[in-house]
């Protein structure tokens, strides 16, 4: 087997960006703008600009642009939506910079957003917001943003390592960040990349659930490698479920999101008995309630036996009339016709679907972490959204913080040299990656991935209990044991089964941190609902759960009070110094 004893190729760069979604590409563009002499390398597990989730954004981008709207209002909505678990400085940064980023996307990068006849940006209403502030291009907003960003990246001429995955962060003997190990998945060749600054922007890990929305690549690689490197993670128990994922049998279409705008436009949810159960759960807001509330209500219908035989509930917008549904939601109607339903003329089966990870690496508003030279941006970071993310704040986060990471990278690079990594770290990382190819007699990863998804769905999903979480802990420990015996036959070049084995390692690492954090939080807040502690408890739990890798290699959990630097829980703005 090649790769073991031969010396590894060594690449050098000023800024290594891991991930090529909204955060990664904005980072590249802003680093290049701040200092055109920088050498920038984009390491992308999938196609550059075409992998990850920014591109899949349907709804839009929240920014304060309309007359009568205010930053304070967007900020307050974000904190209310996040149940005050947010890092208020991150949330403020998001809100404060979103309008500038929209302007840049439109005027500098050419995004064509929908405008009204009078020339203003067309701002549409979204869940949990007190003002219409969602910028969009029809229902394909993410595609427009990512296509334009991708083309701008051609302009700056960054080095693009497409279909290369990052394995581990590397350090020298004094603990200085020296770069990362990478794997060219087309050739199967590993390499060392020396970098003065590393930006982690790989996206979240919600694919570890049986029903899930994100793109294939999103297996928690960034968070897992940061955890292994000793960084602090926060809010790991906060995993968002979107209320309306498609139910399509065993097809991979299952879990793909039917956008929030449907509920905004009056779509109704009913159980198998025809009851409109949101009348019971939230009589005031009905289907327009926040994602955590609607998702849990649907889930309850399904597990209590009032769902459809296929395990869903029914989403119906056909009262708008077929022509109107086609005009506003044509892409989604077309998708439902693929599975023998038709959103335009009748109800469609949907289920809550794992969607977005609010938790992640602890950062400051400049994307700095506790490791000098290491930045984190986008879904890999934690704190911006607290316990629940508002629709439209996701693409805003990736682009706002991606841009900041690029500027920070350029600002700190002068103080960083290239440091030679400890050979043992390199060897261990590469050995771990190649292990499934070298083993004999084991099974490929598929069955284990399925079991992981079932465990997380059943025991660490929308409704959690101590008992269930303890079972999850046990099952994850068993899966970790079995995953160390996974074996993949076949060549090392372009081998998706091998890549899935490496994905599984990341997923198991992150899954464990979600379960351990969920066990600690003995209350219910936002996406985290404990049936044994069903109330929100600000007295004891206005605290973030922080986890890091202890000296013994086991997760060490602590809690830290949320700092109410700008807005008190009652909704009172605090004086700014």
């Amino acid at each position: 087997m090649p790769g073991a004893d031969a010396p590894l190729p060594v690449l050098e760069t000023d800024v290594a960006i891991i991930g090529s979604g909204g955060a990664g590409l904005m980072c590249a563009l802003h680093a290049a703008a701040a200092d055109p002499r920088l050498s920038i390398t984009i390491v992308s597990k999938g196609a550059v600009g075409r992998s990850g989730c920014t591109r899949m954004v349907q709804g839009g981008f929240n920014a304060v642009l309309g007359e009568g709207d205010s930053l304070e209002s967007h900020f307050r909505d974000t904190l209310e939506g996040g149940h005050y678990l947010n890092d208020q400085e991150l949330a403020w940064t998001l809100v404060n910079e979103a309008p500038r980023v929209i302007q840049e996307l439109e005027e500098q990068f050419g995004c064509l957003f929908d405008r009204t006849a009078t020339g203003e940006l067309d701002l549409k209403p979204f869940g949990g917001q007190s003002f219409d502030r969602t910028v969009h291009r029809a229902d394909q907003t993410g595609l427009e943003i990512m296509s334009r960003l991708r083309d701008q990246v051609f302009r700056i001429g960054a080095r693009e390592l497409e279909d290369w995955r990052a394995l581990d962060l590397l350090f020298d003997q004094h603990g200085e960040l020296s770069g990362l190990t990478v794997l060219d998945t087309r050739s199967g060749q590993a390499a060392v990349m020396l970098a003065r600054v590393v930006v982690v922007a790989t996206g979240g890990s919600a694919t570890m659930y049986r029903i899930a929305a994100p793109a294939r690549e999103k297996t928690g690689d960034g968070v897992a490698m940061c955890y292994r490197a000793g960084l602090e993670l926060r809010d790991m128990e906060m995993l968002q479920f979107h209320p309306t994922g498609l139910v399509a049998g065993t097809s991979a279409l299952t879990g793909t999101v039917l956008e929030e705008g449907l509920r905004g436009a009056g779509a109704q949810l009913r159980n198998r008995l025809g009851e409109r159960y949101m009348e019971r759960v939230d009589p005031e807001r009905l289907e327009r309630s926040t994602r955590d509330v609607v998702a849990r209500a649907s889930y309850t219908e399904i597990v209590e036996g009032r769902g459809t035989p296929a395990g869903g509930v029914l989403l119906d917008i056909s009262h708008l009339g077929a022509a109107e549904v086609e005009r506003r939601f044509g892409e989604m109607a077309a998708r439902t016709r693929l599975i023998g339903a038709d959103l335009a003329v009748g109800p469609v089966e949907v289920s809550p679907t794992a969607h977005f990870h609010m938790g992640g690496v602890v950062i400051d508003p400049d994307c700095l972490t506790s490791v000098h030279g290491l930045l984190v941006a986008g879904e890999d970071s934690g704190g911006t959204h607290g316990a629940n993310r508002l629709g439209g704040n996701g693409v805003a986060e990736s682009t706002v913080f991606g841009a900041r990471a690029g500027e920070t990278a350029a600002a700190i690079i002068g103080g960083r040299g290239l440091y030679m990594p400890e050979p043992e770290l390199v060897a261990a990382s590469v050995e771990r990656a190649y292990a499934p190819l070298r083993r004999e007699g084991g099974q490929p990863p598929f069955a284990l991935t399925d079991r992981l998804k079932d465990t997380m769905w059943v025991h660490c999903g929308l409704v959690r209990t101590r008992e269930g979480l303890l079972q999850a802990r046990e099952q994850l420990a068993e899966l970790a044991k079995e995953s160390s015996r996974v074996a993949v036959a076949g060549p090392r070049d372009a081998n998706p089964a091998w890549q899935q084995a490496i994905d599984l390692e990341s997923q198991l690492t992150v899954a464990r941190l979600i379960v351990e954090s969920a066990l600690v939080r003995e209350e219910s807040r936002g996406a985290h609902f404990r049936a044994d502690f069903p109330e929100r408890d600000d007295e004891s739990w206005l605290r973030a759960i922080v986890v890091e890798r202890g000296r013994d290699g086991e997760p060490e959990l602590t809690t830290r009070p949320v700092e109410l630097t700008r807005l008190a829980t009652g909704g009172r703005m605090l004086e700014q110094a």
Partner: protein
Amino acid sequence: MTALAVEIERSDSEARRHFTVEVGEPTMVLDVLLALQRTDASLAFRYSCRVAMCGTCTIRVDGRPVLACRTPVLLGADGLLLEPLAGLPVVRDLIVDTTPFSTAWRSVEPWFTPRADAEPRVLAADDPSREAIESGLDCISCGACWTACDLAGAEHRFLGPAALNRAMTLAADARDGARDRRLRLVSQEGGVTRCHYIHGCSGACPKGIDPAASIRRLRRWSIGAGR
């Protein structure tokens, strides 16, 4: 459940080519690939988003370039023949190297360039250029048109439908300051004049774009744009 015979073009001549898979409803071609991967873990194919946004699962199904995630399998069909996209080097099995496609795309300088005078900064909803721009947006770079084009895939001396479509969306945009330069780029050898209007591209586009129409517009604009 129905048994379906599937034949897959493999890189390794020793690798298994013929499979039978049990399919229910609904089943996309992508689902067939995911099921077969469990029979033969060495099978190489790619996908990402499952919802026709990433454009990475493009293959030929019974000869036609399509997105695997968007193509339902018809129960009762005789069988499926799955092959990699034509006109691009094969990496392994159904995975192709899209470098020729992206090189052509890059060569039209596809990045928006704001006008020096920054006027107009934005386009109103009723701005006449919106219609032309929007007709070419939402391309997912899947390469179906490249394979379907008799010229692009075959000889790589034609920029191809997708790149020219991108150039059209920029040339139509009153906010863009690089119109003249871009029209010169697409007027060169291998540009708009090479298209023979066979319309393979427009028939193949999974997003309903009409690249042949984009090329016609671009050709019209490039006449008189000077060299």
